[in-house]
């Protein structure tokens, strides 16, 4: 009976863990503290390139956008956050409402970045885009049968649509854009029609919906463009085969344009290193970073004058984008959520 040994093992764990370097913001080294809702491999590469170029080390916490907002808000004046990044316009809007962003002069970016992607009041700026689009079966849907999101409400699609749950931020933003364009009543009628047309209860993510088409469970799906690109560019033969049976379509080309959501960043209100924060945000618009978004995550770079290599993504561009200012998506997010609740979109 040697409990002593057991506790010695434990104590050694404790000591070793405490001796780990914590957030070493040493006096001399230049750092920038990033709170990011993105968790993509492109970002690690971008941060490494940034440090290489500027000598500024990047400290990173990544988590869900709402959680990040809560942490920065609670830490208040003493928050170490310099840059806050989210992957959804509604979250940017919410962080702005919570007073987490410092107003910044982003006017020097307007040469290369479209105006609807910069917050009118200068609290944040978007650096990469994703579009929520329609995918259909090559064999069971003819080109021209669907031209818009609104077309999906037609009863001819009854039992033929796959789409993920409404807890997902991308669905919320899509519906928010319809609220902005069509008004709440029409948007609700649309959502109700989609629920009536669903081939199955929502399950899985966007890739699950594309697989659903390939397997014949449904004919049409709503998905972000990069999930399809990810499957086409995948090393997995099964994913490639599924994607090969599906056509990706950017809707509303004659009307409002396809729905676009953004990854955006702002400088934190109490940023201890505001200059470094600005340097990092500027770096997101560099050729290196814009190229990484296109090549590593299949996102659409906001700059159109940067060259990159990704044939799958290049084949999708250009398309007519919804030029709604993305801050409007934030305004209508709660309305969208309530519509989802009322129509029973799981």
């Amino acid at each position, binding site marked *: 009976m040697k409990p002593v040994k057991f506790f010695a093992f434990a104590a050694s764990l404790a000591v070793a863990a405490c001796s780990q370097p914590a957030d070493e913001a040493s006096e001399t080294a230049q750092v920038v503290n990033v709170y990011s809702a993105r968790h993509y491999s492109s970002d690690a590469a971008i941060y490494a390139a940034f440090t290489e170029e500027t000598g500024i080390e990047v400290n*990173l916490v990544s988590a869900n956008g709402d959680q990040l907002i809560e942490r920065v808000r609670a830490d208040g004046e003493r928050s170490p956050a310099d840059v806050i990044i989210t992957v959804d316009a509604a979250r940017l809007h919410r962080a702005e409402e919570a007073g987490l962003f410092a107003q910044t002069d982003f006017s020097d970016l307007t040469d290369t970045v479209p105006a609807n992607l910069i917050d009118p009041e200068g609290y944040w700026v978007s650096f990469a885009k994703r579009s929520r689009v329609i995918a259909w079966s090559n064999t069971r849907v003819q080109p021209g049968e669907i031209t818009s999101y609104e077309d999906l409400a037609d009863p001819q699609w009854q039992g033929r649509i796959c789409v993920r749950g409404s807890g997902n931020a991308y669905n919320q933003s899509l519906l928010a854009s319809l609220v902005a364009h069509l008004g709440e009543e029409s948007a609700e009628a649309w959502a109700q029609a989609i629920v009536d047309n669903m081939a199955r209860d929502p399950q899985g993510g966007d890739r*699950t919906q594309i697989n659903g088409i390939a397997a014949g469970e449904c004919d049409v799906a709503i998905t972000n463009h990069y999930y399809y690109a990810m499957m086409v560019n995948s090393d997995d033969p099964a994913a490639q085969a599924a994607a090969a049976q599906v056509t990706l379509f950017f809707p509303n080309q004659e009307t409002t344009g396809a729905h676009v959501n953004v990854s955006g960043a702002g400088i934190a209100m109490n940023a201890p290193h505001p200059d470094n924060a600005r340097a990092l945000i500027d770096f997101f618009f560099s050729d290196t970073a814009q190229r990484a978004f296109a090549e590593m995550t299949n996102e659409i770079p906001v700059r159109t004058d940067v060259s990159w290599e990704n044939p799958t993504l290049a084949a999708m561009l250009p398309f007519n984008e919804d030029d709604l200012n993305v801050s409007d998506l934030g305004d209508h997010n709660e309305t969208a959520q309530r519509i989802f609740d009322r129509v029973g979109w*799981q």
Partner: protein
Amino acid sequence: MPGRATSLAILAATLCAAPILAVVWIGLSGETGDYLRHLAGTRLPTYLLTSALVGLIAAGGAGLIGTGLGWLMARTEFTGRRTLGWILILPLAVPAYVAAYAWLDLSAAGGPLHAATGGLFPTIRGSWGAGLMFALVLYPYVYLLARNTFSSQSADAYNAARTLGAGPMSAFSRTSLPMARPAIAAGLALVVMESLADYGTVSHLGAPTLSIGLIRAWSGAGSLVDAARLSLVLVFIAMLVFGLERAQRRRARSVNAAGRHKPSPRIRLSGLPALGALTACLLPLTLGMLIPLGRLVWLAAHTETAPGLVAASWHSLSLAGITALIAAALGLATAYALRSRTAIATLAARAAGLGYAVPGAVAAVGVIAILSGTQSLLDPAWRSVTGEVFPILLTGTGAALVFAYLSRFAAAAISPAETALARVTPSLDGAARTLGASRGQRVWHIHWPLIVAGVTSAGLLVFVEVLKELPATMILRPFNYDTLAIIAHNFASDERLGEAALPSLLIPLVALLPMIFVARYLSRQDP
């Protein structure tokens, strides 16, 4: 040692309940909007119904698997039993959402199972799918506690029943099972609470439980206050579940009072029965661990290895190790305090268990509220000396994480410790005292050997829980601090299952380390 134990129990309770109380406070003090009314008129009934269904299926499945395997391991002998005894705990180290991602990928339209069976294999989804996932990865709670109880049961009652003509099954269900009921109930309570607090699994499989509603209130409507209010419902359900469990325990007390322990001989199985026992063990293991992880490994063959796994393994291991030790100590103290049967001890034990009821993301909000509140309180004093705000010492540290873990998982340590301590009967203590043993001697030489298995099991449960914990870790962690669960989830949430494979595999592998350690320690204890 009632005095010291009770104070420790109160400390544990304060620590564990504080974040939940903070959440309650956020819920009660916030502004009142019409969101909850909107919810009551729309989806609240669905949330409640689904929660009930998922909880029941999880409990039923885990109860069946855990009790059956616990009895097999404790009362029979067959080839491979010793090794399996520990391996059967491993599915607990598979995060339920990882199992869910893999199973949906396998069984959804277009998946290999769907294709191979011509669509006959049902898609693992919805309330049934989620309940099944929880049963398959959470049954070790019931199994561990049931096994400990079955192996410490006196064989007298069972043998008497057999002598009186009862068959083995009937003797089991009339004697062994009722005596094990408190332990099984304790395990089931944990299974139910963990199922209801889960978010990742139910959202991926499309089973809208109350925690989905709660996260939607927060993320969709942007109302943390309403999310906090909804979590009150979960806290209430937790009190109900733990209340039922306590009621079981009280009913069973008289049954358990047999002072004389005649260790029951194991039933030796060979031939077909042995094969059957082996199959019974391998089936849940295969469904809960081998198939989902195997699917991920197969997908991993097509993908690159994610970087940073070594550091993440170390972070996971150290966080889980530290938390498990503290939790086991606090759990034991609470169990001792409960022996005193004082009202304050009972209250402390119940309060400490509440954290289990609330989704990790919400518990984390409570932790943030407390730590940032403390820092704000220190501001005036600090400012008068230094002229600046109090530095950020509490939030974003390892200590904040351990705090959140303890708050979430202390319940998992209390029940096993309490069950273990039930083996130390008052008559045993009395005998030792009569023979002149001091209190220290009694605890060390009599209590410890009897309870060590239960206490280490308690620590192990918490260890594994921390390894796979996700939402609280994500939001509270220091800079540049990944754990295995975080890396696994980041990939899995994008349905990049190949990349998620290796970190998902490493979680049970890391869990194996302490399991081997504990198994060896216990086998030296109990030759």
